Every structure is written in structure tokens, then in C-alpha cells.
């Protein structure tokens, strides 16, 4: 933090000799400068932190990559402690993308449904408390979701997975041989449950702001409730829903504990998402950290850098979409 203090207190240059005889005036000028400098310095501190995150992760990652005997992008296994070290992110990248995509496919339609339910379908008396409860659920810590997922959800998914195997097993993707379903699919389902409140909250906020006059006009033309929503609410809220989804995606990509508790990691890259195996960036860092030596940590930091860049891109894209509509921002969701 030493760099911070340097920047946060930029000693303001002493005020120049007062132009007018009034002494108070220069005093207020000094106060203004100090305060403006302090607040500007805080803003710069934030930028410096962001820059430092990128710089330090990149530096450490470069140390690790220079000694890697495997191909960082295509190697399956993660043996950073081996001599010579061999590690790659192929399995992690695949697992991260697959679990997040599963989470999005499940969560986005349901979240939009709940948001519409709260804004347009629920009985008035129910709507406000419901919105409130969903707000609170967004605050449940991820480790609690992880604990619940590992001890409650996993055992309860055996039945549905066997059923999926019966119905859709021929697609290979949904084949399932029994055993503990600690798989990417389970991780995806748990992530979906986790990001549901966030996506719901932002979407609800957008739907609530869709102009009342448009909706009343549609009603006056004889539209049914669904037609009102389809012609006025959804078009208005589309960009909001997209950015809400991307905020959810960003959270799903970087989620550590919930995935680490429900996934049995292995260096397998398989399309069978119901079968145990695979891994994600964040889960791998949490699981491999305790056994990692100095070099192993550098290797984990390299994978963390990839995760950082991916989430940066996703969040940046979400922000650019939001920026076109300034009124709502997901940051306070």
C-alpha cells in the first residue's frame, strides 16, 4: 500500500501570494486544492490498483510460462510441481466456459421470467416483498451455496441425471453412468441458482422503468398482457437484460467456492457434462494452492491472469452496452 499513500496525499503546491489583500480567500483556495487533490488522488489510486493487478499478474505469469514444458494453451494436465513443470489451461478453459454457458442457459430465461413476474404478473401486495427477498438472496455468500450444493444438491441430482440419461443418453452429451454427479453440469446448475438473483434484480429494475405510456397505449389497442410485454417492455429492456446477463456471466466465470465444492476435478476434457471431471480456472486455483510451491503459485497466477482478462472483456462489454443507457447500472445490484 506504500504506493497508495504517495499518490493519495499529493502535497499541494503552496498557494501563490494572494492577489488581493484578503487572507481568508487564499485559505479557502488551499482547502479547495487539498480536497480536490485528495479526491482526485483517490480516483487515480483506483486506476493504479487496476494497473498494478494486471502488471503483477503478468510479471508472475511470465516467470511461470518461461519454464513451462507443456503448451500453456493446449496441455490438459496441471503438473506445475513436477520436474520439469508441465501445465496447460485447455481443461480449465473448457470447464469454465461449459459450466458458465450451462449456468446462463438455465438462469437467463428464468431470471427474465421472475423479473416479469414481479413487475407485471404478481399480485401487487406480493410484488414488493418478493423483490425484497430476491435482493436479500443476492447477498447469500457463495460458500453457503457451495455447502448446500455439495451436501444437498449433489445427492438429489442422481435421479434427474439418470432420467436425462434414459431420455437423452444417445446424444453422448447427456450420458451418465451413475456415481456421484460431481460434474460440470452440477456446477452449472449451482452457478445458475447463484446468479439468478443478480440477473433478476437488474432485469426487474429495467422492466420497471419501461414507459407506462407505451404499455397503456398497447392496452388501449386491445393487446393482451403478453402482447404488451412483447411489444413494449421487452424491446425497451433488451439491452438491460443483455448487460444483466453479462454481469451474471462475469460472476459465473470467476466463481470459486461453489464450483470447488461440487466438482470432482480431473484432467479430462469430455463432452459428457454429466460425468465427473474437468475443472475451472478459479476452482483449480483454490484446489491446487495448498500443495503448490513457489513455482506452482506462479503457474496458478498465470491461469488467474487468463481468468482476469476474460472477465475484464465480459464486464467491459456489459458496461459498454449499459453506457448507451445511462439510467440504470448493474454495479449496485
Amino acid at each position, binding site marked *: 500500500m506504500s504506493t497508495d499513500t504517495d499518490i493519495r496525499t499529493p502535497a499541494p503546491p503552496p498557494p501563490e501570494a494572494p492577489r488581493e489583500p484578503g487572507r481568508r480567500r487564499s485559505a479557502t483556495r488551499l482547502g479547495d486544492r487539498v480536497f480536490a487533490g485528495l*479526491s482526485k488522488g*483517490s480516483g487515480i489510486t483506483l486506476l493504479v490498483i487496476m494497473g*498494478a493487478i494486471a502488471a503483477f499478474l503478468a510479471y508472475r505469469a511470465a516467470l511461470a510460462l518461461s519454464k513451462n514444458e507443456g503448451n500453456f494453451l493446449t496441455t490438459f494436465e496441471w503438473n506445475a510441481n513436477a520436474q520439469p513443470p508441465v501445465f496447460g489451461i485447455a481443461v480449465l478453459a473448457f470447464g469454465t466456459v461449459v459450466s458458465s454457458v450451462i449456468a446462463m442457459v438455465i438462469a437467463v430465461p428464468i431470471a427474465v421470467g421472475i423479473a416479469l413476474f414481479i413487475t407485471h404478473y404478481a399480485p401487487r401486495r406480493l410484488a414488493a416483498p418478493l423483490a425484497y427477498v430476491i435482493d436479500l438472496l443476492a447477498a447469500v455468500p*457463495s460458500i453457503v451455496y457451495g455447502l448446500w450444493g455439495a451436501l444437498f444438491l449433489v445427492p438429489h441430482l442422481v435421479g434427474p441425471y439418470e432420467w436425462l440419461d434414459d431420455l437423452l443418453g444417445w446424444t453422448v452429451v447427456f450420458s451418465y453412468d451413475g456415481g456421484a454427479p460431481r460434474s460440470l453440469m452440477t456446477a452449472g446448475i449451482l452457478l445458475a*441458482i447463484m446468479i439468478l438473483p443478480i440477473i433478476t434484480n437488474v432485469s426487474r429494475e429495467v422492466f420497471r422503468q419501461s414507459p407506462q405510456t407505451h404499455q397503456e397505449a398497447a392496452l388501449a389497442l386491445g393487446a393482451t398482457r*403478453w402482447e404488451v410485454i412483447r411489444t413494449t417492455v421487452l424491446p425497451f429492456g433488451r439491452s438491460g437484460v443483455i448487460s444483466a446477463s453479462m454481469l451474471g456471466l462475469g460472476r459465473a466465470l470467476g466463481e*470459486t467456492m461453489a464450483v470447488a465444492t461440487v466438482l470432482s476435478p480431473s484432467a479430462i476434457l469430455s463432452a459428457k457434462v454429466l460425468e465427473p471431471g474437468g475443472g475451472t480456472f478459479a476452482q483449480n*486455483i483454490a484446489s491446487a494452492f495448498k500443495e503448490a510451491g513457489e513455482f506452482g503459485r506462479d503457474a496458478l497466477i498465470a491461469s488467474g491472469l487468463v481468468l482476469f482478462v476474460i472477465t*475484464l472483456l465480459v464486464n467491459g462489454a456489459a458496461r459498454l452496452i449499459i453506457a448507451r443507457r445511462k439510467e440504470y447500472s448493474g454495479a449496485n445490484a
Partner: protein
Amino acid sequence: MSAPPVADRGDAFAIHQPRLPRWAPAGVAVAAAAAAVAVGLGAGLASRVQWGLIAAVLFVAGLYAVSARAEGARKAKDRLATSLVWGAFLLAVIPLASLVWETVRQGVKVLDGYFLTHSMNGVVAIAPGGGIYHALLGTIEQVALATVIATPIGLLTGVYLVEYGRGRLAKAVTFFVDVMTGIPSIVAGLFVLSVWIMGLGFGYSGLAGSFALAILMMPIVVRSTEEMLKLVPNELREASYALGVPKWKTILQVVLPTSIGGITTGVMLAVARITGETAPLLLLVFGNPAINDNPFEGAQASLPLYIYEQWANGNNASYDRAWAAALVLIVFVMLLNLLARLIARFKAPKTGR
């Protein structure tokens, strides 16, 4: 005008469209449930989940078909959308309610005064007993330190963006604050690890953890401060300037006091958010079964980390402790949230309406 005649079916100019009676959805629901039970018994499906799914699909399809015949396609689509929206809501309620219910049900088993006031020092993992005192202490110290670090920087940045921010620097800060809200917590942990522990050679400590928590907390504080300051009516500032009060005094004595309720709420919500963070603490605080009340030196425990460790022990006594700790954590976070919202309600900024 005489009363409109009862519309003929199919009359394009009819005022009254044919409508299904009010009990129709309920009737279809009963029929669908009955059919699902019949199918379930007939095909010998063991799982009640399957029965429920079959009933749901039959209900949605049945209502659509009935409505399409009697009321026309538009009305049928409306009913379809209504059932899907209700379905989405019910589908989401099940896991979320189960989460809360399970945590409470399992959590009260070992939660008592002893559990809150004892550490895990000398307790064998597979044996019952032990408690969370050390973890609670660690969490409170780490979160307090993180708040002390993050709040001034976040608050001042918010002030900068609203009161001073013009031009490219302010735009860059706004953008990166937004992006910063999306940093995965484990990446913040890795950053502090690479600088503080691997770079500067310090050991694991509560302080290292609170650095990472502060990074996660700052953007939330900035955003909420910004939102709140924007709500302060400009007339207040102008009135203050008109009295000759300099800008910094106006901010400190007029703008900030007006919005202090909202800002407090934002800070408390941010605290609630970081209290539950586990991943960075795993890398930086490391966990410790004994009481370490010094956050500046040595490995500490923390509540989320404790839950993870107890889960990883993988036996029933540990699971019980994990659930109880999870219950304490949820209650703690919920109380913070409720308190924050109460403050927001009673100290809302007076908008100049």
C-alpha cells in the same frame, strides 16, 4: 344505448370475446396432475420430480390447447406466457427456499453458546465439539480493516466523480470502477499474494486478506457514493455557494451530510458482500484452528474459510459445524443488509421535490 347483445361466436365485430371461465386453469391443473399420476404409476416412474415435471408440461400444453380452441390464438399465447412466467418463478423459489431451509434445519443442530465461544484448537476433526469463536473474531477483524482501507478511498473517489470529475480521467475512472466490480475475488487474492506475500515477503495474515477484501469493496463504495451524491439537489449546492462557502466546505458540510444515510447503506451493503468472501482468504489468511487475535501477524481463521475447511474434512461432525457456521454467516449478512436498508429508508436524502 341498449345493452349490447350477447356476442355470437365467431362474430368479428363482437365486443365480448369468448372467454374461458375463471375456474378453467384450475380445472386443467387438476386434470394434468391426475394424468401425471396415472402416467407415473403406469410407467413405474420412481422419482416424484418426474411426476411433477410431467404434470407441469401437461398443464401448460393443455391450457394452451383448450384456450386456443375456445378463445383464439392470441389469448392462448397470453395464457402460455402467464403459465411460463409463473413456472419460472416457482422453479426458482424451490432451490432458494431449500437453501435457506436446509441451512436453518441443519445449522441449529450444534449452534449454541458453547459453539460461539470456543475455537477448534485441539479438537479432532471427526469428533463433535469445537466452535467458531476464532473464525468469528478473524472475520470481524479482517472485514473491519478492509472497511477502514476501502471506505475513504471509495468515498473520495465517489466525491471526485460527482463533484470534480470532468474530462478523460473521470471517464477512465468511471469505466474502471465498473470493470473493477467484476473482478473475480480469487484474482484479487492472487494479486495481493503476488505483491504482498511473494513480492514483499510478508507471511499469511489477516491484513493480507483485508487488502484483497478492500479491493473488492472499493468499487461498490464508489458506485453507491456516486449514486447518492447525484441525488443531492443542485439547489443546495448553489445556495451554499451563494453564501460564499467554498466548494470543499460545501461538500463536507452540505452535500455529504445530506446523503450520509445512503452512503452508510452502500458501505454496509459492501461490508455484507465481502464478509462472505472465501477465495482470497484461502490464499492469504490460510486458516488456523486456534485463536489468533492479531490480524497483522500470522495465519488467522475466518468464518467463510471455516465453512470450507469443515466441509473439506468430510465427516458428519464437521458437516454439522459447517452448517452451523453457515447459519451464523447468513444471519450476520442478512442483519447487515436489513440494517442497511432500514438506514436507507429513514435517512433517505431529501430530494428537492
